[in-house]
């Protein structure tokens, strides 16, 4: 937690939920907002009213942003989760991305919707008592996303890093064929 203008604001990955993390990344991805607006919207979302910033000097604002961004620790990949008595497993010994998962993840990432992080984890974490068909059904992915959204962001971030690395290494850049006309 970091104290901002008298408000306790979660900033560590074990304090923010996946849902909060998704909202923050969505705000930062908004090309309509400038850098200061992005920070103000994030702080407002986490409980600091915009009006409180009226008398804050820019130098102080910069320091506050710096302290908010001071995230410590490097969470590890968690191979399985227990939610409501069910076990959800992403991998056994070593994290691997299957073609099926990669195809689903690529579609989710291309859709650029707000809840993409939880949906992406919902693809990776599979309930151990269900069949393959059930894992990938839209309804089940949606349900899992909802459950995952309540978990802490420390679960999601290592996966985002890992997936990002694998995709950039293995997915070819879109190279359209030579256009004749």
């Amino acid at each position, binding site marked *: 937690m970091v104290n901002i203008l008298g408000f306790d604001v979660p900033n560590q990955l074990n304090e923010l939920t996946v849902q909060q993390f998704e909202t923050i990344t969505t705000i930062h991805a908004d090309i309509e907002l400038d850098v200061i607006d992005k920070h103000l919207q994030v702080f407002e979302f986490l409980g600091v009213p915009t009006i409180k910033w009226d008398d804050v000097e820019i130098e102080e604002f910069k320091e506050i942003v710096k302290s908010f961004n001071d995230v410590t620790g490097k969470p590890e990949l968690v191979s399985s989760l227990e939610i409501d008595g069910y076990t959800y497993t992403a991998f056994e010994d070593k994290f691997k*991305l299957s073609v099926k998962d990669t195809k689903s993840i*690529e579609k989710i990432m291309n859709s650029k919707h707000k809840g993409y992080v939880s949906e992406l984890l919902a693809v990776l974490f599979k309930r151990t008592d269900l069949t393959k068909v059930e894992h990938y059904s839209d309804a089940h992915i949606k349900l899992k996303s909802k459950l995952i959204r309540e978990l802490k962001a420390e679960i999601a971030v290592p996966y985002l890093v890992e997936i990002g690395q694998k995709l950039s290494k293995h997915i070819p850049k879109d190279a359209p064929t*030579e256009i004749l006309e």
Partner: protein
Amino acid sequence: MHLPKSWSEIDVLQFKEIRELYTIPEVFNREVEILAVLADVSSEDLEDLDIEDVSALIKEIKFVNSEPSKQYKHQVDDYHFKPLDKLTIGEYIDLEFYFSKDYNQHIGHIASIFYRQKSTNQWGVTVYEPYDFSPRQRFELFEDYSINDIYGIVPEFIAFRENFMETYGNLFHDESEEDEEDEKPTTSQESKDIQLKKSELKWGWERLVYSLCNEDLTKFKEVLNLPLIMTFNMLAMKKELNV
């Protein structure tokens, strides 16, 4: 898993199948589907593989992101390439149609217009079979050939068409109308005029042929068999001399 190494191992039907997959917006999804087509397996058979293994296979088929050979065979079995300067109006209109649709999906139709049977008449002149058939009846004849055998007719025709339009483009519309294209109608009469122009564009070729027939539909086929270049030269002369 046997994978082809170049376009020369891909037939026309596979080429069409591959190019159709380019409508899939996600790169990896598309590449996996293409891989499945080339390996002749279901894409579901690949789904449990690790991304590292599959991306290695995808690298082997990188050639699909390039164009097939621009050289083409001048003879495919009994069919011979009919030179572009011998095209008739009817052949050109049909080629325009297939190129405006999607030439990759109609490569067999296009080939059936270009590749024709021929003979030599008693005067030693090469005569091509008449265009009395529909490309829809013949396109399958070309689907088993290597795409490299016939793909080159595509860039060849595109270059010809560009040159043709540059030379004769002004015969398709009035120069005075060029600036009016983007105008928005302010009165109902203007709206009707714009609608009429759109209809004229839609029926452009039919109008041209109808006018060449002197509005006599019994001459329609005769006009379609006229040599393209000669006819457009005459039309250009008519326009220039206003006769």
